């Protein structure tokens, strides 16, 4: 891990996230969300969690971002601009950021540097998923099935 990569990735991620939060055009914001998620995935690569980074790219950018873009296109008839911007939200977000930063900086035990780590191979992840985490894995499977069926039921045409 080196600092230059960290600084470059964090500037890129935060700029893309800020653009996604503040751009007036919804489609531009969705594309900036994709960039911000790419930045987070590269953080995961930097931290040595390659599998999670790839899963993030596949699931968020491949599925969730495409879903967001489809929803934007499907709800396009609403052409009135939502220019309204509640400044109280910005104040709350700043207060939350200040509080979190203060708490992080005041905690002495967080100033550690990374130790040498055993590489987390996909084989080890699969073995852990299938032994220690098999019960949560099944629960997530049921949850995903229920969520997808629920989403289908929600968008089905209403019978008049």
């Amino acid at each position: 891990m080196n600092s230059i990569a960290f600084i470059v990735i964090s500037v890129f991620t935060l700029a893309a996230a800020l653009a996604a939060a503040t751009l007036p055009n919804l489609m531009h914001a969705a594309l900036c969300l994709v960039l911000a998620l790419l930045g987070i995935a590269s953080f995961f690569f930097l931290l040595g969690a390659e599998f999670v980074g790839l899963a993030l790219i596949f699931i968020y950018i491949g599925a969730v971002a495409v879903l967001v873009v489809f929803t934007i296109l499907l709800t396009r008839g609403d052409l009135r601009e939502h220019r309204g911007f509640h400044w109280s939200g910005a104040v709350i977000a700043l207060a939350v950021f200040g509080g979190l930063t203060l708490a992080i900086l005041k905690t002495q035990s967080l100033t550690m540097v990374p130790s040498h780590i055993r590489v987390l191979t996909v084989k080890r992840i699969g073995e852990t998923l299938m032994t220690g985490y098999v019960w949560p894995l099944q629960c997530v499977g049921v949850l995903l099935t229920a969520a997808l069926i629920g989403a289908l039921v929600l968008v089905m045409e209403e019978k008049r």
Partner: protein
Amino acid sequence: MTPTLQAFLIVSAALFSIGLLAALSRRHAIFILIGIEMMLAAANLNFIAFWRFAPPPHPATGVMIAIFSIAISAAEAAVGLAMVIAIYRHYRTTNVDQFDQLKG
């Protein structure tokens, strides 16, 4: 020189605050979902950072929780966007200030 755990946590806190800003200040329903996705991604970054900086032995707990969290946020996005489409069909708007009744 390597970045410390604090640096990752501060970036994650900034990302969370930006997501909160998007969720609280924008009036479009899809912007609120974008903000929630960003907050969940920031939480995932925290999990991975704590896993990486933990003292040995390194159990894979942080990575596992991040994987489950990604799966759950995918389910959340699917249901949330379906709700946006269903509400848009009914009200012909996506401005959350105008969703003011539950009765159809």
